[in-house]
Structure formats: C-alpha cells, structure tokens
C-alpha cells in the first residue's frame, strides 16, 4: 500500500514538474493555423446571421 502511494506521489510530482516546464516554454499555446500556409478568410459573423 505504501509502495503504491510512493509511486503515485513520484509520478504525480514528475508529471507536474515536467508539465510546468513545458508550460513555461509555452507549449500548448501555439496557434493551430500557423503550421500550414492556408489563408482562412472570414467574412465576419453577420454574413452567417449569427449576430444577436
């Protein structure tokens, strides 16, 4: 039982530390449309009738 808890704490601690470092670098924050050169043109919301 103690072994399970020890392993859990170690894995959780490592996961938090690793994820914090990746978050510090900015991973997960990059825009999804900058890795491909496709121009997605928007005509605004009102063309689709989505304004209140």
């Amino acid at each position, binding site marked *: 039982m103690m072994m399970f808890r020890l392993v859990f704490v170690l894995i959780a601690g490592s996961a938090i530390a690793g994820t914090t470092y990746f*978050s510090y670098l*900015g991973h997960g924050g990059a*825009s999804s*449309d900058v890795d491909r050169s496709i*121009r997605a043109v928007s005509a605004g*919301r009102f063309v689709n009738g989505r304004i*209140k």
Partner: protein
Amino acid sequence: MSLNPDLKTINCTACGAGLDVLGGGRVTTHICAYCGTALDALDGYKALVKFDRLDRPQTPFKIGMKGEILGVEYTVIGLLEHKERHWRWVDHQVFSPTHGYAFLTLEDGHLTFSRRFRKPVAWLSKTIVNRAEKRPQVRAGREVFKYYETSASEVSFAEGEFTWAPRKGKKTHTVTAMSEAAMLSFSSTAREREIYHTVYVDQAEVARSFGLTEPLKAKGTHALQVQKSGANDGFLAKAGLACMAVCVVLGIFMFLQNGERLPTQQRFGVSQLPVTIPFEVTQTGRLARIELQGNGRNSWSFLSVELEDPEGEVLFETGRTLEYYSGRDNEGSWSEGNNWAHLAFFPPMAGKYSLTLDMEEGDLWSGAGSSSPRRMSKMDVHIRTGVSSSFWLNLLALVFGCIGGLPLLRRFLHKRARWRGSDWVEEDDD
C-alpha cells in the same frame, strides 16, 4: 413444551410427522414443515391454524442449519416469507443458546441480520412521519437514523419455531430509519410494537459458515450495503484533488506570464496598411505572440498576416478577423465579438523576423437596435516573446481531477443507490 430442555423432537399433533425442537425456552409456536399446522408450544402442541404449503419461498437456508453470524453460532429454527405488493423477502428465525433469537433476512440475494433493539430510542411512527416537514430522524446513542420508508407487510409463508404466533395475512406496519451502517425498524401490529436493529452481513462468509454450496446472487445495491472501496481510495481522492489544486495554481501563474514585449512600432492607421514590422527574436524554443487590437464598432475587418523568418522564407501566412458588435434590445444592452485577436508561434531560429499585415476585407453592420457602426481606423500591434501557456497544466489538472473525483463520485453514487428505495420526498423535489 419447549421449556423442557430434554425435549429434542415431537410428533405433529395434526399429521404425526416427526419435528425437531431446536429453539429455546421462548418458543411459543411450532409450524409443521409437512402439513403447515401451527402448533401451540405452550399448550401441548395443540393445533392452532394451518398454513398453505404450496407457496414455499426460495431460500438456500434450511431449518436445522447451523453457522456463524458476526462471530456467534446460530441455528435456523424457522422460516417466514413476507410480502408487500410485489416485494418478497424471507426472514430466517435463528437461535443461539447464548445470544437468543434473531432474524437472518434474505432479500434479492442480500443477507441482513436483525435483532431486537433494547437501547433507549424515541419511537418513530407513521403519524410522526406524515406530519413531519423535514425528513424525520431519531438518535440512538451517537448514531443518527434518518427516516427511510414506511411499509405494510404480511406473512405469506411460515414454517418452524417462533417466539410469537405468525398469522397469515396479518399486517405489520413498519417505519424504518437508516444510519450509515444500520437500520432501525419500528414495527407495530394491532396489539404490540417492537424495534429491530438490522445490519448488512458478509454474504460469502455467512454462506460458507452455513455450508451453502452455491454463492448468493445479490441484485442491485442494498440500502445497508457497505461500499466496496479499495485500500487507496481515500488517498487517491485526497492526493488527486491536491495535485489538481497545484496544477490550477501553476496554470493561473503560467497564464499570467506574458513574456517580454518587443520595442516595435505599436500603432498604425488603417490607411497605412499594408505594413511590415521587423522584430528581433533572441531566444528560440519559447513561444512568441502577435497581438492585434482594433477600434471598430458594429463592423468586421479581416487582416492578412504573413511572417518571414530571418532567412527570408515565409514561415506562415494566415489571417485574423477583428469584429465587435453592440446594441440595445428589450433585454438591455448587449455586445459580442472582440476587437482583438492574437496568434502565437515558436520561432525556429534567432534573428530578424518580418511581420506583414494588410487589410483584406471588411464591412459595417447595422441591425435593429445596433449602435452606430464605425469602421476600424487604427490598430495596435504588440509582439511578445517568452510567453508561457497554461494549456497542458489545465489538462493535467483535469486528469488529476478525474483521479481524485472518481472515488468521490463512486461514494456519491453508492449513497444515492442506498437511499433510492426511500419513500421520503423533499418538498423541493415535488
């Protein structure tokens, strides 16, 4: 007759069948297993009434079986089947020379053990329940029993020895109240009332002790059933939620880390577009963010965005829409959309990058109740490097939330399943 300790068997005075005498000195009625005649054990086993033999209940426990219940050896001395509408359950009257009489009840494959409750406790009646505005409860020592249900059952089958005289069809009204681990049953007939204390017993252990060859097949969750939880459930709940809290705090901290704003020109008139903004990136491997802010109202503008790396290669070509709408209707003022947009990327190398912005399209909107429209006339551009992100920390917080929340969810669902049979309805639930 059963007051005579030497008496081990009798012959039924109705059919002559040999019957074992297993109960102690308080047995008053012996119902013949062969002909169903109730015999008066206090008056020479004279025949009293006759029970129907055809409707025998399904139970693996037979009269004469011995086994341990909660560490005490009991003998099954009688069988009683109760019914209430379509529900049926079997009470096994059990006897121990040292601990007296009790009931081992089999209901939907679940086993419970009931004994007379002799500690001081307030009586809970149907009238009290009917008059109560909140769920009634009684206290027995430190244990609080909350009202569970009111039932009216009748005996549909009886066989063996009893400390009272079962009568077929005789109604027993019972009000039950439940604590975390036990149930109190306040039963009353036209002539007497009594309180029984019931607990859930380890089915496998009792079945093994009584020598049952087939395991009992329990259906659903019994109101008194204790939740089967792992040894680490409590730890996982606490540790998971603590880790989730740590991730949330770190995520908020990272969300607020906006890095360093580069000293580029910040404001442009729309008439100046297209513009090319050079900027220097010194650190790679960190997120950079381009922030655009417009000043239009009830209008939209689509800006094309092109970025060239220090080698003059186009890194990406994309666009952003700045649109903001507002107005007033019968519900009050409203607004939607944003006059700002951003895009973030990882610079592949250090050096001088070139950002080119141009106005591709745009238009005004004038709907009913809208404010007067205004085209975007100027825009602010900020470029930041060394920006952090909380995305993966938020995701990890969600994972830890699931780890910590699962045992709590199971506990909640088990508790709800336990109380599902209760007939109490809160006024708010109507």
